[in-house]
């Protein structure tokens, strides 16, 4: 198997297998016959931390648009709404990760896939362009994280 690409998030490597493509919203997509299987990239998992809870707000059979909100994830470091990486019809969700979201941390590129769709791979990036996308957006992603981490909702007079 070809060597995966690595994107360094500070001192932490995000491993990116080259046998699949990636969406700009940090999900991987791999063709499985007539369906497209989707999961989180290591970049996403690294930012989120240990997965605690995963839920979908749409049902199997739903036609979704690229960027449509389809679910929610809560992890040790962060929460996020989840968005479809491409247009298509959802054919299945992975029950294993719904019942044990922690599988995503241990097996994110294999058995811990999130869902399968039938659709067109519009707008997906090959691994190298995805790494370039990460390189280009990493400083701004950091600013976003730090800006939010620095938010100050309860100003204390001290």
């Amino acid at each position, binding site marked *: 198997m070809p060597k995966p690409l690595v994107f360094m998030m*500070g*001192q*932490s490597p995000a491993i990116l297998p080259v046998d699949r493509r990636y*969406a*700009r*919203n*940090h999900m991987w997509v791999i063709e499985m016959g007539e369906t497209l299987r989707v999961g989180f990239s290591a970049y*996403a998992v690294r*930012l*989120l*931390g*240990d997965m605690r809870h995963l839920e979908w707000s749409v049902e199997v059979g739903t036609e979704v648009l690229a*960027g449509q909100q389809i679910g929610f994830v*809560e992890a*040790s*470091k*962060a*929460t*996020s*709404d*989840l*968005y479809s*990486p491409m247009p298509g019809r959802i054919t299945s969700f992975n029950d294993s990760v719904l019942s044990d979201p922690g599988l995503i941390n241990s097996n994110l590129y294999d058995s811990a896939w999130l869902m399968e769709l039938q659709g067109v791979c519009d707008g997906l990036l090959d691994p190298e362009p995805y790494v370039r996308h990460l390189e*280009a*957006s990493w400083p*701004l*992603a*950091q*600013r*976003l*994280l*730090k*800006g*939010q*981490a*620095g*938010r*100050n*909702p*309860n*100003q*204390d*007079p*001290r």
Partner: protein
Amino acid sequence: MCDAMPVIFSEPRPGDADQQELVLLLTNALMSRKAVDLTIVPHLYDLEPTGPTMEFLREIEEPMIVISWLYPRAAFWTLKTAGIAGQLAEEPADQEERERPVWCLGLHSEVDPKSILDEVDRILAGAAAPFSGRSDNREPTRRVEDTRERWYPVIDRDRCSGCLECLNFCLFGVYGTDSSDDILIEQPDACRPGCPACSRICPEGAIMFPQHGDPAISGDAKASLEGLKLDLSQLFSGADPSAQALAERDRAVETMQSQPKPAGGDRLDSLVDELDEMDL
């Protein structure tokens, strides 16, 4: 029998007249108590661990009271990190505990000075042996040391689980490990002023930035850790990075307009300036 209990009074950072007034009121009231041996030191958080004031504090072996502009938990672990032995005491009975008790009383601009003095009196009254009282009428001891405003994480070792998430997350090389692989704040002054991100990343809420405006980050033991999680929806929507930056700028501007300026508020100005310079 001791004549008096060491009371360490940490000065505020310069510039706030209300705080200076409170200092004067409290130090005068403390000096009127013969059972108090008062020493005034520069702002505790800004002291260098290797400096003469921390060295002086390390030499105090008896139970002591520390009054500072920090939450008690933040003050205690700042001292502990500098090698000052003891345990954070809360009740007068804690004087019976195995380790030397250190009472840490937190000040802020709106604190009722009477509540601080009452607490000092309560601790003095609970002393294992009564104090004979100072016979002199001297001024408080003042430790003078050049300090600068610092920004670095303080770890609550009672909460830290040793997961090293902070080490992995920090981009500035602040953290390291010792020979037992325990977390170490290796280069505190490499920390980016104003950035408390590792505090939010810490699953145990063990990392404090005592000068941060959010009580859950600055060391309030009672503050909830809920709501500290980052919301990454913007990143995971696949939004264009320039749109993210604009949203960040808008948030920074909104924050500046809606809230009083924190001590480290200049960072917001520079952040907005930086983003403006990007010509997005």
